[in-house]
């Protein structure tokens, strides 16, 4: 059986969470993204699932009206996969043994589920007193709405972010996967800080992340404005108060757009000059930021007439050369083709499940001494059962086979 190596002492060149073990009970998108961030930073992340109810994002799903292309692989990369039926008493017991050998626990069940399984924070603290545990849920572990079910667009709705997003004359707007993943990113931030505290003090900590509150964090300025003045911002499309141009403009190719912002007077002058429109600088409608904002529709129409004749890359090149903030609206294809992102390793090639080369998103940071890492593509369900149950927990071949037969390792 494959021995379980925790690895050598931390050295320069190793990822910063080298030697840190995460027991990952998370499902769907938000929780797995938290564990994904920890895995990119080098933690040994053991994803615990069961064939009885695998991660909904692992299996084909009709969410967009087609049974295919589930969205699991990217956030499960770098992880180890084991199967455990947590509803079986022996399954929960093995989970506890795994936790006793881990540093961090992550879970994203509905509040109360881990307690019912005998795997709540208090129970896990009893087997690993300094454990750092993060629970990720729609509304948090406390409060009258703690049991509310939710998905990304509903976190954005309850947290107010979706309410403030949309065209001025339109309805609220759904915030999609980025709401899940920003929740996971926030959870990773908090759990990293809690782990740092543990390293310094020896004390574990329980981190309770509420996805809707993550959405609140994105509108903290609006909440403060309302609390102070009784007035809150409304939906405002692409507008930003007293900034014009500040919009997304159509370019020559079909469904191609470029974002342009001129926030201060220097940028406005450079912008007018780059477009060959010096007369704008003496036009009373555009004489100040406030005047431009009032007349932004007229300004946008004239800018669109210019951008429509050009590619978004040409617009970007001309305006960036003039010191004006402009960038194409990137599709996924643009992202994987972008030399800058490829050069930084943010986009890289990896061998997929059938050994095919595919473009994936790498770690989003460059740490000069302890680089983050993406080493492995997504594991198959239970791919690391032997390695973890045998190598780490020390079970014999016979014991493992028996647990498989009893649908504990299942």
């Amino acid at each position: 059986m494959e021995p379980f190596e925790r690895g050598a002492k931390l050295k320069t060149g190793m990822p910063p969470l080298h030697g840190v073990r995460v027991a990952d009970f998370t499902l769907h998108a938000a929780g797995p993204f938290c564990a994904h961030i920890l895995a990119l930073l080098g933690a040994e992340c053991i994803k615990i699932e069961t064939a009885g109810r695998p991660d909904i994002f692992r299996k084909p799903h009709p969410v967009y009206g087609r049974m295919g292309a589930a969205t699991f692989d990217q956030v499960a990369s770098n992880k180890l996969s084991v199967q455990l039926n947590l509803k079986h008493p022996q399954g929960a017991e093995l989970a506890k043994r795994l936790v006793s050998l881990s540093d961090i626990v992550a879970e994203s069940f509905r509040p109360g589920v881990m307690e019912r399984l005998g795997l709540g924070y208090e129970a896990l603290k009893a087997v690993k007193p300094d454990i750092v545990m993060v629970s990720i849920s729609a509304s948090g572990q406390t409060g009258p709405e703690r049991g509310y079910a939710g998905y990304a667009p509903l976190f954005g709705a309850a947290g107010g972010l979706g309410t403030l997003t949309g065209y001025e004359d339109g309805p609220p707007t759904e915030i999609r996967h980025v709401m899940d993943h920003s929740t996971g990113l926030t959870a990773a931030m908090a759990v990293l800080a809690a782990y740092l505290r543990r390293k310094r003090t020896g004390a574990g900590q329980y981190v309770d992340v509420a996805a809707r509150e993550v959405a609140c964090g994105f509108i903290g300025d609006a909440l403060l404005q309302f609390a102070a003045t009784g007035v809150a911002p409304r939906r405002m499309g692409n507008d930003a108060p007293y900034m014009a141009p500040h919009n997304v403009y159509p370019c020559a190719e079909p469904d191609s757009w470029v974002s342009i912002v001129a926030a201060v007077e220097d940028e406005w002058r450079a912008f007018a000059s780059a477009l060959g429109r010096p007369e704008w600088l003496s036009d009373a409608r555009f004489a100040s930021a406030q005047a431009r904002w009032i007349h932004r529709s007229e300004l946008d129409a004239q800018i669109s007439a210019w951008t429509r004749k050009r590619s978004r890359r040409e617009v970007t090149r001309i305006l960036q050369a003039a010191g004006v903030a402009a960038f194409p609206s990137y599709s996924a294809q643009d992202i994987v083709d972008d030399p800058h992102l490829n050069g930084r390793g943010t986009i890289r090639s990896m061998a997929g499940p059938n050994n095919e080369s595919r473009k994936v998103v790498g770690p989003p940071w460059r740490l000069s001494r302890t680089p983050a890492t993406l080493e492995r593509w997504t594991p198959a369900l239970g791919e690391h059962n032997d390695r973890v149950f045998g190598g780490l927990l020390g079970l014999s071949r016979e014991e493992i086979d028996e647990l498989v037969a009893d649908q504990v390792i299942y």
Partner: protein
Amino acid sequence: MSNQHNAPLAGFTVVEHAEGAAASYAGRMMSVMGATVIKVEPPGEGSALRRAGPLLTQEPAASALFHYLNAGKQFVTCNAESADGRLLLNGLLARAELLIDDTPASRRPALGLDPDVIAAQHPGLVFLSVLPFGASGDHAHYHAYELNVFHAGGEGYLMPNGLTLEMFPGRPPVKIYGHFAEFIGGTSAVCAGVAALLVREELGGQFVDVSVQDANVSVGCFAIQRLGDGVLENRHGRSFKYGGVIECSDGYVGVLTLEQRQWEGLVKLMDDPEWARDPALQEPLERSRRGAEINRHLRAWARTQRVEEVVRKGQALGVPLAKYNEPADILESEQSKARGVFAPIDLPGFGSVPAFTAPFLLNGQALGLARAVRRPGADNEAVWCDWLGRKTAELDRWERHGAV
């Protein structure tokens, strides 16, 4: 209430030399988590972000965004373009564990902030660089604001979906409210910064290059995966086939039923209408195919319903539903009160006002905000003199020379 006992970064000192929202958000989250964050601003009027919308007052311009991003920090002024200023900043960095900086890479050497120089002078310091496109690469020198990085990260191209897109199919993509992409960048920066602090005792400081674009590409990784699976996402193709944003008689709810039992709960919530009894609608793919038809029924029903009741009853039936909450709803909700995620801060002219703290509790307790925003340089004496041991006379001289 402030919760220093649980605050995980208590004892760390962070210097924030930053103008933008991404780096300021990183500093904010470190401050909320207990670090002492010293914000360094240009002498005089301080950061331009102090006057950025949304505004609490027009004259003088007081920014709700600035107050949100900077409550809890200490405020010093320092002009790193002057030799005295660079000397002072260096003294500050010698006492800190982490520097957050968003100076464009090409300007750093002139301010004494070249990463190699900093590494030589302060080997134990984590230099957390937070820039729109990172510190290196073809686009590192590009100028960008929130709207630009939002579109550089890929999510801009994919917004909006659902009802908004249905109503306005020909309009340009719409951004997410506020500084979403930059706050993602800031959160990502804290992850990397804290990871660097974790290894600092063993390995010393290091340069951490954070790109707001990278952070947003990472958060938007599903679109990249789908592309690898052969599907190029666009905003028309990724709308949910039914559910989504639904208008009730007094507001909007979001509805999303991904699992069979959730669909069955939704049918019950609507009182088991005739149209939903069609056996073919038991099949998820058939429901997707007939999404427009389902939404016609769902919308007609919802227009006769009140939001609060739909959400309460629907959640009891296991249907994922949420109200599109306004800021007032959030501030007044029993959920927010029970969680304690708003803490009072003093805003000039408004008195004590509840401000959002952090979207997580630690050991069951909400975090706090140590102090309200103060004027630029309000903590100069406390930091430069009391903490770093400079003399008051020196401070006066630097003030005269514009160094602080």
